[in-house]
């Protein structure tokens, strides 16, 4: 019974475990395949042999005229005159503290006050403004764009990239997208901002007129010097030296050095050897501090002595000071700047009637300085250029000039801050062009520029002399709308007009030759390797080839195989194939002029007004499409085309001129700005695309200082000096490719706001919020506030407050509009999102769990490694908590336990019922049949009393038979009695039978028992069969042998059950008279799958064996 119960339990357990396992498993999601952006190019070949030969004529009718003398104007370029002086530096006066009446500087405790800071006022940034005449492409920021005030007298950039504009009304933090205002309303003790610095820990040191405040993102610490009652300091400058000490200068009390422990300070004033009137400071490469003073010259403190420099200075008042990368000291003085380098001091003065508020050297080695009456200046190669109110600056009253991490120059003025990208200069009619609308360009052998304008003629820009020579129709030009230009190998300048015919200016500028029958609307002129001049006439259609020597003119049109007659650009590739960019496709004409390979316009290749064509150094072809179809790259080796559009980073889908610079970067002129594709991307194009990475396109638009709209069709030029010349709608842009203006690679992104159900919250601990939609936010918990953003740290929300939104912004003051974002909610999303311009995302119905929201930005340098993250947790409802699950498991376990117990009880009950039935049957048999047989026997005995001898004998036999029947019945009852189901019961019965019967025939017996676990159950059928075989065997011995001894052995072990019976009777087999006994034995053995061996070896031997059930 116990065995059955155990087996059943195991079965049930396995069944349940299997079910749970299968229920819990779920299949994994499939991954999406990478999209293919490459398309097969469609083309067809046309043999010119199969088509009519091109028309050939000779240009006979041409006129050669005297070229008029051009008007020559100087290109001022905002250069200014200045006075240059150079002196040797005289020896300084040495002042040693502790000697000659100079006292030793003392260390004193600081007065420190810490307090919380309020949330800043956040104003969304709007587009900056610019003036009409703006050759420096300045973008102006002020009140109108969100700053706290227009009067900005210091600009600072922290390590994350935020710009801080300090005004007298407080400070604005600008990240490119938003402005955050910090004033006394937020807890500052002063609004009169002077300067600021950032220490190594990222704390910001604000220097106000009378206060020093340190902001760590959460709280403000105010530092004051003793004595408080004499608190009259007017602070002028702040620096942090390499050791971490903070130096603060004042107008009347010298300098205070706050020790890096932020507990004490050391004072240096006149008594200590310094001046009390310190205006500016800088640390040099040796760790010495240079201090500029009012009227007392320059001091140097090396930690032990002061050196005072006065002789040789242009002026003893030093307003500003900085150190260049070359270890030159630049100081701002009255009317200009001075440079101290080695033993000499050079002065660049006479520039401004007022003092120089700041000076520094930028990354391109231009020295910038701001003045209080004449705007800003920069010194480059001993020339000084002036940026002032009339050429774009908001005001001439400039307080500060600095360079940010990307290389932009910021000029702070009384009327706002100007941002300048030194890459770009716009040259307009005011500078000397015949017209600001530039249509064509060409660079001659001298690297000077020919500029064709609309309604303006031609400007010849001599870059060395910095002069413009202007040619008009009056000088002999056939038209005023110059749409094409070429300077050929003979330095003759070919001119194509919109209305007007082809003409050629001689190399010596003495004559101009007209070709009246050339056709008009000449959009492209090109000289091939043979010296032939090719041009396209949109009026006549097709292209013409002019042999300069023979004047033979050959005309190619669609009749000869051109894909279209409206040809916009003619060029040749490295293999000297001719390329014709047309209105309806591109034609390649083989070098031998035998075959056209045409790539026509089609839905798959949008060669719809191909404005320009260019072959890069890898052999790929680039085509600019005018009709909003972007930039197309054609690889003729693999016959694949790839299209770039605005989504790829192109500033505009209308593409014009394309060119490659000397560093093999590709430049593309578009309607809304310039684009640059790096050499790396050109050389690894296929790899980059096949890895589904983005080909980085650096865009230059008005956001980063390229203010004009592209024009000039396919024209774009590069001179030997490395300047890119780009025709625009209102100027020709000169792009300084060497200018180090580049977005940072590690652009930081900030999560600026976290919303719940699309509503912003003012995060407070232990608060309950009611949203506008009526929803109550309860059980909200967080440990602290994140510094700088004020967002909650370790936010925990209840399960039903699971609709979160994230707003983020890149810290990018260069080109914030071009920033894309990628984000991921770890714990929910499987991968990063595709790049998007949207700077917010929402997640609804977030399941319980712990999450981290991450976001990163993509700028022109690619994906930034800097990620912003926000951790939060959605608490599960109580029915999903661990203790609930534990309760479920317990409940399940208990249920399973009771279920199993119930099933076991049921099974046992059935077994017991069966056993009870067997017991009842055996009992009933025993009682009823036994009693009947007893009655029969008694009846026979009673009847025998009165019967005669014969009848009596029969009746007594009947009585004996009844008894025998009772014995048989008892055997049967025993066989089905469930209480006799053990091996010991079988052995007992066998033994009992042997003991009862063998002695009656004087047969001795030996009964050996080797039973392993006698109380084990034996199958009832087997039990009965074994006993009956045993009984039959002994009966045979009793009845049919002359044995005197019987050996009986019963063995039960792990091998099985063995019964061995051997008598010592005669050797002859003696059959049972009835003949049924041995047969029955065999049948019974067979029925229970037992082996039965009957042998006659000096007696009757019976061997019965079978395997035991598990």
């Amino acid at each position, binding site marked *: 019974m116990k065995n059955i119960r155990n087996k059943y339990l195991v079965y049930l357990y396995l069944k349940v475990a299997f079910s749970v396992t299968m229920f819990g498993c779920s299949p994994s999601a499939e991954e999406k395949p990478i999209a293919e952006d490459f398309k097969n190019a469609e083309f067809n070949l046309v043999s010119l042999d199969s088509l009519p030969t091109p028309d050939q004529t000779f240009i006979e009718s041409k006129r050669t005229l005297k070229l008029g003398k051009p008007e020559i104007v100087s290109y001022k370029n905002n250069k200014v005159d200045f006075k240059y002086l150079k002196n040797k530096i005289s020896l300084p006066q040495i002042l040693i503290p502790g000697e000659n009446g100079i006292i030793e500087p003392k260390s004193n405790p600081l007065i420190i006050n810490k307090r919380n800071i309020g949330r800043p006022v956040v104003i969304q940034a709007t587009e900056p403004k610019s003036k009409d005449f703006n050759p420096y492409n300045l973008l102006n920021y002020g009140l109108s764009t969100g700053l706290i005030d227009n009067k900005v007298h210091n600009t600072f950039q922290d390590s994350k990239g935020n710009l801080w504009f300090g005004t007298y009304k407080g400070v604005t933090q600008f990240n490119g997208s938003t402005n955050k205002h910090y004033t006394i309303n937020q807890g500052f003790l002063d609004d009169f901002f002077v300067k600021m610095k950032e220490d190594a820990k990222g704390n910001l040191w604000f220097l106000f007129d009378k206060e020093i405040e340190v902001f760590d993102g959460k709280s403000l610490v105010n530092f004051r010097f003793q004595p408080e009652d004499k608190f009259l300091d007017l602070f002028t400058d702040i620096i942090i030296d390499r050791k971490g000490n903070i130096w603060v200068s004042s107008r009347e009390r010298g300098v205070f050095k706050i020790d890096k422990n932020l507990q004490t300070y050391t004072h240096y004033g006149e008594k200590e050897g310094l001046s009390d009137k310190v205006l500016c400071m800088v640390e040099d490469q040796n760790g010495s501090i240079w201090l500029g003073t009012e009227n007392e010259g320059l001091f140097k403190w090396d930690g032990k002595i002061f050196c005072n420099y006065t002789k040789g200075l242009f002026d003893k008042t030093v307003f500003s000071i900085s150190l260049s990368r070359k270890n030159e000291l630049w100081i701002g003085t009255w009317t200009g700047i001075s440079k101290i380098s080695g033993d000499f001091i050079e002065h660049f003065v006479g520039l401004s009637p007022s003092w120089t508020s700041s000076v520094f050297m930028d990354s391109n080695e231009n020295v910038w300085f701001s003045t209080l009456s004449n705007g800003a200046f920069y010194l480059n190669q001993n020339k000084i250029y002036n940026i002032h109110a009339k050429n774009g600056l908001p005001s001439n009253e400039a307080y500060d000039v600095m360079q940010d991490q990307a290389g932009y120059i910021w000029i702070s003025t009384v009327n706002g801050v100007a941002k300048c990208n030194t890459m770009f200069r716009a040259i307009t009619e005011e500078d000397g062009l015949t017209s600001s609308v530039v249509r064509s360009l060409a660079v001659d052998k001298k690297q000077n520029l020919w500029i064709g304008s609309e309604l303006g003629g031609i400007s010849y820009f001599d870059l060395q002399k910095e002069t413009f020579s202007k040619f008009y129709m009056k000088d002999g030009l056939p038209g005023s709308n110059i749409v094409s230009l070429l300077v050929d190998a003979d330095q003759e300048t070919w001119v194509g007009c919109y209305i007007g015919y082809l003409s050629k200016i001689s190399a010596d500028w003495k004559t101009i030759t007209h070709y009246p029958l050339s056709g008009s609307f000449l959009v492209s002129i090109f000289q091939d390797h043979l010296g032939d001049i090719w041009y396209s006439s949109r009026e006549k259609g097709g292209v013409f080839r002019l042999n300069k020597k023979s004047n033979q003119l050959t005309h190619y049109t669609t009749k000869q195989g051109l894909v279209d007659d409206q040809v916009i650009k003619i060029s040749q590739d490295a293999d000297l194939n001719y390329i014709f960019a047309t209105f309806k496709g591109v034609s390649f004409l083989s070098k031998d002029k035998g075959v056209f390979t045409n790539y026509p316009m089609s839905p798959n290749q949008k060669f719809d007004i191909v404005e320009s064509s260019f072959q890069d150094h890898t052999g790929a072809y680039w085509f600019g499409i005018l009709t909003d179809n972007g930039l197309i790259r054609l690889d003729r080796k693999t016959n694949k085309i790839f299209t770039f559009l605005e989504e790829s980073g192109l500033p505009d889908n209308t593409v014009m001129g394309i060119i490659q610079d000397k560093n093999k970067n590709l430049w593309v002129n578009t309607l809304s700005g310039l684009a640059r594709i790096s050499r790396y991307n050109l050389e690894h194009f296929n790899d980059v695309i096949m890895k589904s990475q983005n080909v980085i396109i650096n865009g230059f638009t008005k956001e980063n200082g390229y203010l004009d709209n592209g024009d000039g069709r396919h024209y774009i030029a590069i001179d030997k000096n490395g300047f890119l010349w780009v025709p625009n709608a209102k100027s020709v842009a000169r792009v300084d490719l060497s200018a180090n203006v580049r977005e940072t690679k590690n652009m930081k992104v900030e999560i600026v706001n976290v919303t719940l159900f699309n509503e912003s919250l003012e995060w407070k601990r232990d608060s309950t919020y009611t949203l506008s939609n009526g929803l109550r936010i309860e059980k909200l918990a967080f440990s602290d506030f994140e510094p700088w953003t004020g967002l909650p740290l370790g936010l925990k929300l209840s399960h039903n407050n699971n609709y979160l939104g994230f707003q983020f912004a890149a810290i990018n003051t260069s080109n914030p509009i071009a920033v894309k974002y990628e984000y991921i909610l770890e714990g929910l999303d499987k991968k990063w999102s595709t790049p998007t311009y949207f700077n917010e995302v929402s997640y609804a119905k977030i399941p319980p769990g712990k999450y981290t929201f991450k976001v990163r930005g993509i700028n022109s340098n690619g994906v930034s490694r800097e990620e912003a993250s926000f951790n939060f947790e959605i608490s599960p409802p109580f029915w999903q908590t661990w203790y609930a699950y534990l309760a479920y498991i317990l409940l399940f376990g208990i249920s399973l336990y009771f279920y199993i117990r119930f099933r076991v009880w049921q099974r046992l009950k059935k077994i017991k019922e069966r056993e009870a039935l067997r017991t009842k049957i055996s009992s009933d048999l025993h009682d009823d049949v036994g009693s009947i047989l007893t009655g029969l026997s008694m009846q026979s005995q009673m009847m025998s009393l009165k019967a005669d001898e014969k009848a009596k004998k029969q009746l007594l036999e009947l009585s004996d038979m009844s008894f025998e029947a009772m*014995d048989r019945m008892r055997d049967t009852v025993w066989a089905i009695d469930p209480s006799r189901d053990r091996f010991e019961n079988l052995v007992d019965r066998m033994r009992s039978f042997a*003991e009862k019967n063998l002695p009656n025939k004087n047969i001795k017996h030996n009964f050996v028992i080797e039973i392993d676990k006698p109380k084990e159950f034996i199958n009832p059928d087997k039990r009965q069969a074994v006993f009956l075989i045993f009984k039959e065997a002994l009966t045979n011995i009793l009845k049919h042998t002359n044995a005197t001894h019987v050996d009986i052995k019963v063995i039960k072990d792990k091998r099985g059950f063995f019964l061995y019976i051997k008598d010592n009777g005669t050797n002859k087999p003696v059959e049972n008279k009835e003949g049924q006994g041995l047969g029955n034995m065999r049948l019974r053995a067979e029925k229970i799958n037992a082996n039965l061996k009957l042998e006659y070896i000096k007696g009757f031997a019976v061997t019965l064996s079978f395997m035991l059930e598990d």
Partner: protein
Amino acid sequence: MKITEICIIEDHKIVRDNLRSYLELHEEFKVGLVCGSAEEFFNEVKHANGISCEILLLDIGLPKMSGIEALPLLLELKPELNIIILSSYEEEDMILKAICNGACSYISKKTSLKDIVDAIRVVIQGGSYMSPSIAREIINHLMGGRVSKATILSERQKEILEKMVDGKTYTEISTELFISVETVRSHIKKMYKVLHVNNKSEAISMYLKGQIK
């Protein structure tokens, strides 16, 4: 001649009738109440205000209350009553239950009528009669049973036990019997199980007390 009144409780009519008829053939016996169940007997006795017979032939397999269950109630009514069990049950547990409950004799129904009368006479004379097979069951019970109270060892086990009694070590035993030490251990383990002992000392003690066959 003393006449002994005998009552019969037997549920089968033919047995009841034959018993009564045979006993009535003997002048020394007077057959009193003959009932088919214990309940009927108690009912009759109640009306008769007591049991008048000296000997009661009681069957075990009766409807409702069995003979075993009726035994103490009968003796409560008449403690000196001599109850002879007449049953076809010859199992040791049934026999012991009957005797423990107060039966003075136990006769198998396989016994002839003549032997039943002899048995009654033995009881009248103050003796106790058991059918031979019944007596054997009782003897076996007193001797500790057969296999289930096993003290029967195999020949090899007996050999090993004898050597243990002689104080031999396992190694010595294995050497003398030409078997491995592991085999010796295995036999000893089985032997302990058979004997229901935990250690050598208990096994040796049983042997010395002659409890081992």
